[in-house]
């Protein structure tokens, strides 16, 4: 929301939709100079640091993932690394590679989300990616395909796209999948 005058204006954004976390921003400009800036974080506190106390060392990765559903892997990995550091463990080889892949998947998903679904509509003057798709469907579809690729990577390594559980066994034991050949899991819904 913007109130214009030649050299003085007030910027007030009630919801900063382009960054994660919920905040509002208020900028007051007087005579061409920033007079006042207020950032209000109204995201309700959830107290992860408090309730993690007393949990077993095996639990933080699953719990910290819930800090953010858009970047759960980052929090899981941070927790894993913190625990490993505390235990004096270094992980390398295939396991480290798998972790990186999991991370890459999240990056791809998250960046595609931001570039195609949030920034592009802003820069091109659309209300949303859905409005953008009305005029530029192939571009939005490409963005969605990229996003899906990232999600698929997380899904394959972690079991699901949001709050994965580092369930890499399927990858490590290829035979396990074939075992399901005679027992198909449910197929996606019609139209999927």
């Amino acid at each position, binding site marked *: 929301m913007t109130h214009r005058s030649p050299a003085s204006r007030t910027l007030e954004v009630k919801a900063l939709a382009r960054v994660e976390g919920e905040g509002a921003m208020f900028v007051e400009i007087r005579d061409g100079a920033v007079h006042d800036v207020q950032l209000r974080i109204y995201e309700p506190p959830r107290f992860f640091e408090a309730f993690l106390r007393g949990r077993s060392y095996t639990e933080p990765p699953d719990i910290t993932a819930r800090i953010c559903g858009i970047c759960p892997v980052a929090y899981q990995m941070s927790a894993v690394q913190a625990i490993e550091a505390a235990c004096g463990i270094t992980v390398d080889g295939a396991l480290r590679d798998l972790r990186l892949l999991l991370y890459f998947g999240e990056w791809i998903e998250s960046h595609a989300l931001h570039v195609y679904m949030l920034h592009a509509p802003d820069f091109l003057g659309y209300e949303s990616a859905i409005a953008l798709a009305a005029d530029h469907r192939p571009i939005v579809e490409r963005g969605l395909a990229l996003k899906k690729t990232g999600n698929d990577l997380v899904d394959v390594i972690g079991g699901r796209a949001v*709050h994965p559980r580092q369930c890499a066994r399927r990858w490590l034991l290829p035979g396990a999948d074939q075992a399901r050949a005679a027992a198909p899991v449910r197929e996606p819904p019609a139209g999927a």
Partner: protein
Amino acid sequence: MSTDKPSVAVWKFASCDGCQLTLLDCEDELLEVAGEVALAYFLEAGLTSVRGSYALSLVEGSITTADDARRIQEVRQASRTLVTIGACATAGGIQALRNFSEVDEFRSIVYAHPEFVETLGTSTPISAHVRVDLELRGCPISKAQLVETISAFLHGRRPNISGRSVCSECKERGNVCVTVAGGTPCLGPITHAGCEALCPAYHRGCYGCYGPADTTNAPSLVVRLREGGMADDDIVRVLRTFNAYADDFRDASEAVAAGKGAE
């Protein structure tokens, strides 16, 4: 945007955004969904303007502030159908762990200036505040169930969402039971289906992220977990994660914490 399509709003309260992201994660269906409904309020997708009333509101997150307790009333009034998405909205979420402690202590531990932090003493599900038409379980919700719910809403049918246990989905999927064949503790017998038995399929015990099933017998599972060698502290913690404040899980963990039901 055309207005004859039912308008859908997505609301966030205390949560991680993961459940509403699940809607954006429906890459294959998203534009199709957008073709059938008018996405009218969805902050995460950049839609920020609130307009009038909504045919369907998807509500993520739990109620942890006085502001949010007011806001959910407005959302309810503006919504013909209100569906909660995820463990926070349905059971209070991981942040409901405060309900078992003192929030003032939590606040002073986490924040340098606790006086700036506004919060309620409890994290409560949406249904503790307003009437809820349907609760989608999970931390996070399942993409398939979300699309199914929207599809069912569009065509006026009951979504195919079963309240049976994760064991059902394990058997359906052909998983070998991790508890019986491996001695791995698993909350599957008392946990609501919907994840397609994700964790047991990868040899991990279910950690209850879909909350309690329709019919549960948590006290009996507690007995089994003890027989399997779990200490009471561990049992309390395993019941106290993302659905800690859901009735069946809460009652069971409180009973164990109080030393009840010991053999």
